[in-house]
């Protein structure tokens, strides 16, 4: 492999002696430290530090001469941390003392911070021990869904993603008393929902609303609008007539002193004898003191013209069009949002929403997108590219979950609207269109009807297990069937493991006690089952191992581990059956089941959480993107950009394509919306699919993805440091040390008219900055041709603000982007494309980083140095299979650590 970078992947740090690691069993007699500072640095300490912190003198009670270069325990780590902190903050050596050479200091700090990272990692190494862990929030929700067939609200539970690792890592998964009670409550709620869903409904739960049913309302509002304009003019005339009366002349002259215009004068109508009250003309009470309300109807007559335009459109007898909202009113406002309240007797559960819709020709393609939303001003639930034509409308089928939270909050209003209808720019669009055509935005979407229908799903395994009545019955339930039902329920809840001795008796005890308290059968049963759902064998993934020895997992345990890895939930019937038959304990059987799970749509429950956390995609939500600077990167585009990352990995997995396509590819995986953003033509519809790129396109691979580039910004400007660090962390597997504390920020360039490069150049001046930034910044420079929203650009501008916060013309600079740079101890590149080639050449480092992430996610513990052999093995194996995406999964699943406690 070429050596464009200094070699310090996870295993080997430049200038670091790597010593033999602890043995996997953790019983090594004399563990030698893995993190060792090179001997040559001793000299710097001797020359610059030990005069005050040596054998003779220990200023601040701190001594350096006896500090070992190998960091093998927490105490030594803390002493070195102190050295690092003092030098990073510039506190040491003291200002008045002789300072080390800048280059030498930067090298020392670079190595010390890397060694500290290694030391912390080595000290935290769990040596292969996977501690029992509870289900995280996501797995818990999935587990209840699979068990009971209901979708619960888990937002009150801790998110588990606060730590630095994955949400599967046991060390970050606590359980507190509050949580225990939440589990009880959520469990009862889930059971309540599941029980309710079993009540056979006599009526079909389906509702269709025809768009043309709105037309009479449209016409009514239109007439009202016309009337309001006439009423406004009538009131104005009446007031003006009163003001014109000769006997009021003196009074009016007096008022004219404070109210020059006629409109202003009418604010004082009460003082003009004979002027009528606007409420007599049908206006609201507030108009008495604020005639602006009346003027609105006089001034904003565009709604009338817009209504008149609407009335000329074809096919109003069988459907209608989604319009823009106009000011004040008129019939078109009725049509802007179309939808209905979901009937009150529809319970929480699974539904299908259908919309028959067509794209109206003659408007820009970008307007042929439809949003589904709950509540008129709420964010869209989903976005759909409409490809049906007026001749052949399409029927959208959208799966929809009415949640318990929706039901509790009474939010049942389901709407469709044109994309971006509530982006706050309706007025602007209206004005622009009126200048052009005199009435308003032309319609873009025709809707025939919209409907919602309950989706009947077969009872989930947990409910199937309950072969007893779920509702209160006069006679009650006989003890024997009750016990049998509970036993079967426990087997399902415990992922195939039977109830331990005494368990069912205890649950029956709760049932009996609740009945004694006055509960009926249904309520008592719920409480009894909720106890199962808050018991440790349900909440924890237990793999008992008496003496803590590494033992092979049993078939069922392996099924559980595999299923939570690849589907984020409990094993299904087929997997449990394979485990019971012993197939999982054979490599080919395990491989077949792994393939089956990867082929299943449920694998999305692996793809989404894993990729989101691996690449840190939640950073995309940290910032509001400036609507003024990046109008096209709205919420819908941001979400499409995120989907691209997820869908691309899903594509690789589906096709078993090389993972290294993430570094460089001649295609993107996109939908119509994002394709338009990327300037690719001919992509239609919402589905993400592979699209070949034209030659010379900067897209293809993670580095060209809008989401990745946008994460390296703050929504306003690019952040080359964040981008560079991300590439080091995620693509090159050379994570820079965490941002050090107490390094003073360079403030002298703030607010000056400089290019981004000039600004960042300051990092090279101070050794404590240069030690990391000389690796980070050049990569960021190479990506500067992408703006904060991931669009290609050749120029950038800095615009400073004055004291009042307004753009200051004196502090403005525009420059042509210069994306060439030289990597620290590595090659030079002349532009983005060359940088991308260099990164693409580091396939093995990338594979290694990916493998470490996969191990951490799948095994639920940090990937430590004791995993080196495992990582090496997986990388070797996958390299021999051209880094095929599935080979990583198989290599890990087939490994001993995956199959052992």
């Amino acid at each position: 492999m070429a050596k464009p970078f200094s070699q310090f992947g996870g295993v080997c740090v430049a200038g670091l002696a790597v010593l033999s690691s602890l043995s996997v069993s953790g019983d090594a007699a004399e563990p030698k430290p893995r993190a060792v500072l090179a001997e040559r640095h001793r000299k710097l300490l001797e020359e610059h530090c030990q005069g005050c912190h040596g054998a003779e003198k220990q200023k601040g009670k701190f001594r350096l001469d006896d500090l070992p270069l190998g960091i093998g325990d927490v105490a030594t780590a803390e002493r070195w941390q102190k050295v690092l902190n003092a030098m990073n903050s510039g506190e040491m050596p003291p200002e008045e003392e002789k300072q080390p050479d800048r280059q030498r200091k930067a090298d020392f700090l670079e190595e010390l911070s890397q060694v500290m990272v290694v030391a912390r990692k080595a000290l935290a190494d769990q040596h292969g021990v996977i501690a029992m862990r509870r289900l995280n929030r996501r797995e818990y929700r999935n587990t209840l869904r699979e068990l009971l067939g209901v979708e619960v609200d888990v937002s009150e539970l801790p998110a588990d993603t606060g730590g630095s690792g994955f949400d599967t890592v046991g060390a970050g998964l606590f359980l507190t008393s509050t949580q225990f009670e939440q589990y009880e409550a959520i469990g009862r709620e889930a059971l309540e929902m599941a029980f309710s869903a079993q009540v056979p409904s006599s009526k079909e739960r389906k509702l269709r609303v025809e768009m043309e049913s709105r037309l009479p309302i449209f016409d009514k509002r239109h007439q009202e609008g016309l009337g309001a304009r006439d009423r406004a003019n009538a009131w104005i005339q009446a007031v003006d007539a009163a003001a014109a009366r000769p006997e009021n002349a003196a009074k009016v002259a007096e008022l004219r002193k404070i109210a020059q215009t006629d409109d202003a004068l009418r604010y004082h109508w009460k003082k003009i004898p004979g002027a009528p009250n606007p409420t007599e003309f049908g206006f609201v009470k507030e108009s008495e003191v604020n005639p602006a309300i009346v003027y609105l109807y006089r001034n904003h007559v565009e709604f009338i013209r817009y209504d008149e335009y609407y009335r000329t459109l074809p096919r109003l007898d069988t459907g209608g069009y989604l319009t823009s909202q106009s000011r004040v009113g008129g019939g078109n406002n009725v049509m802007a949002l179309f939808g209905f309240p979901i009937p009150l007797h529809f319970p929480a559960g699974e539904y299908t929403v259908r919309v028959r819709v067509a794209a109206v020709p003659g408007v820009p393609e970008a307007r042929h997108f439809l949003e589904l939303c709950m509540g008129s001003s709420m964010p869209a639930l989903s976005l759909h590219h409409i490809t049906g034509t007026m001749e052949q409308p399409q029927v959208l089928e959208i799966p929809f979950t009415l949640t318990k939270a929706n039901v509790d909050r009474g939010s049942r209003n389901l709407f469709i609207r044109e994309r971006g209808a509530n982006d706050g720019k309706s007025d602007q669009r209206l004005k622009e269109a009126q200048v052009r055509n005199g009435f308003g935005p032309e319609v873009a979407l025709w809707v025939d009807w919209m409907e919602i229908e309950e989706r009947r799903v077969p009872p989930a395994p947990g409910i199937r297990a309950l072969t007893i009545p779920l509702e209160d019955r006069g006679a009650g339930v006989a003890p024997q069937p009750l016990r049998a039902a509970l036993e079967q329920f426990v087997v399902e809840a415990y992922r195939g493991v039977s109830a331990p001795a005494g368990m069912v008796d205890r649950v029956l005890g709760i049932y009996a006690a609740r009945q004694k308290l006055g509960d009926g059968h249904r309520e008592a049963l719920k409480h009894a089952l909720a106890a199962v759902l808050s018991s440790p064998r349900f909440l924890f993934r237990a793999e008992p191992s008496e003496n803590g020895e590494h033992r092979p997992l049993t078939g069922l345990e392996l099924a559980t581990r595999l299923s939570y890895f690849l589907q984020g939930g409990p094993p299904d019937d087929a997997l449990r059956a394979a485990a019971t038959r012993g197939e999982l304990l054979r490599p080919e059987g395990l491989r077949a089941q792994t393939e089956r799970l990867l082929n299943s749509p449920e694998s999305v429950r692996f793809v989404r959480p894993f990729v989101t956390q691996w690449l840190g995609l939640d950073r995309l939500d940290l910032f509001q993107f400036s609507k003024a600077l990046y109008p096209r990167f709205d919420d819908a585009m941001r979400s499409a950009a995120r989907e691209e990352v997820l869908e691309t990995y899903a594509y690789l997995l589906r096709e078993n394509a090389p993972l290294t396509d993430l570094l460089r590819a001649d295609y993107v995986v996109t939908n119509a919306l994002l394709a338009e953003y990327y300037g690719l033509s001919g992509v239609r519809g919402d589905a993400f699919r592979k699209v070949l790129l034209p030659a010379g396109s900067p897209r293809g691979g993670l580095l060209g993805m809008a989401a990745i580039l946008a994460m390296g910004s703050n929504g306003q400007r690019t952040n080359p440091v964040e981008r560079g660090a991300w590439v080091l962390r995620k693509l090159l597997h050379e994570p820079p040390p965490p941002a050090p504390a107490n390094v003073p920020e360079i403030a002298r360039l703030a607010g000056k008219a400089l290019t981004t490069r000039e600004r960042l150049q300051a990092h090279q001046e101070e050794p404590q900055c240069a030690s990391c930034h000389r690796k980070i910044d050049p990569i960021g420079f190479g990506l500067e041709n992408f703006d904060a929203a991931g669009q290609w650009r050749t120029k950038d501008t800095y615009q400073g603000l004055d004291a009042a916060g307004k753009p200051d013309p004196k502090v403005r600079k525009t420059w042509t982007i210069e994306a060439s740079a030289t990597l620290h101890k590595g090659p030079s590149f002349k532009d983005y494309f060359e940088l991308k080639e260099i990164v693409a050449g580091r396939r093995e480092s990338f594979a290694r980083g990916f493998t470490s992430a996969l191990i951490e996610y799948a095994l639920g513990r940090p990937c430590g140095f004791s995993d080196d052999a495992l990582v090496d093995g997986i990388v070797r194996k996958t390299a021999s299979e051209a880094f095929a995406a599935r080979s990583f999964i198989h290599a890990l699943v087939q490994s001993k650590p995956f199959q052992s406690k």
Partner: protein
Amino acid sequence: MNPSLPRREFLRTSTALIALPFLDSLGFRRLASAASRDRASARPKRMIFLGFGWGVTQESWYPSMEEKGRNYQLPAGLEPLAAHRNDFTIVQGLQNRYTNNGHYGSTFWLTGANEFGEPGQSFHNSISVDQVAAAHLGQETRFDSLVLDCGAAARPSGHGLGLSLSWDRSGKPMSGPKNPVEAFHRLFAKDTTPMEQQQAMLAQRRSVLDQALENARELQRGLSKTDKDKLDEYFQGIRDIETRLSREEKWLGVPRPVPPISEPKPDLLGYEEIQLMYDIMLAAFQTDSTRVVTYRQPVSTLLTSLEVRIDAHTMSHYPGKGPEYLEASEKRDQAQSRLLAHLLGKLKAAREPDGSSLFDHTTVVYGSNIRTGHLLDNCPTLIAGRGAGVKLGQNVVVPKDTPLCNAWLALLQGSGVSVDRHGDSTGVLKELLA
């Protein structure tokens, strides 16, 4: 803890904080109220800890280090507190020596723990000062402490790991109400269930917990040492509930206090949200529902409510940015100081039965582990209230890098909590003592 001990025995052995003579709830209440009438000094001590994540504007929040003592010029960032300047003290020079993460404004702020202190663990924390206080000051109230948080706003507000400012005695994060409405309900929700039925339900609740413990014991038998440690969290969670049930039992039949404020409006974010939380703290003290409160305040939504469009993290790095970032940072300081002034004013105005004010018996700690940007030394620290006998009206400058925990220890001892160390304390911060 040996889980095979019967539960009742456990309650006797390890929850010493439920003093047994008080188990007779009537007797206990007589005793408590008699004590309260005695003399002013016997009024209960209270503590409030307010954490604000991303630090302050260092240039305009701190008084000059040269102007030690009383005669210092109030800096712009503290200007809204001018009316109270004789009633709070700024301490400069404190830090948590083990904290190295520039994004952890609250994780170790009240604990002083070393994240890497336990070999074989990638994260470690220990009990926070408020929970030490709660174990002593919280025995006679319905809630031993009130742990308040800002929910989803915490992450972009620079608080770091954790679910609130509070960490329990095993170093696990604690959670509590995440908005004013939840906090209000926690304190004042009425239970209209008849007493008898409440008792029956408590008994039933106990039996459910007994079952849960039994299930855990059954599982524990086959587990390795590491797994047992993890399962201990489950045991402890259940025991914490039992401790609380015992407390609830004591309070059974004692009606919830009439709230001195009306139920807050939902969905308020930022400035108004913080102010409401402060009002709820005051209400909690006025009704003696608890004596220890922590609050992890929102910064991100505070900015939004102040119509600042810059994200909180970027703002905290204002030194390297343009003037609008500095302005946002100062606007934040001003708003936070105004809010604190509001709280201090209310504490002073609230009368105790003996004519003294709540302020006379309360300690308010207001600060963060982060100074500015990623700077973790000279943590912003403001202490107000006369509850711990701290000298007020001062600009106290202590030797650089003095442990924050020395200040916490001084406040604990000053509030009558007899402990001799906390976190990485090396002694009591003498400079605080009057």
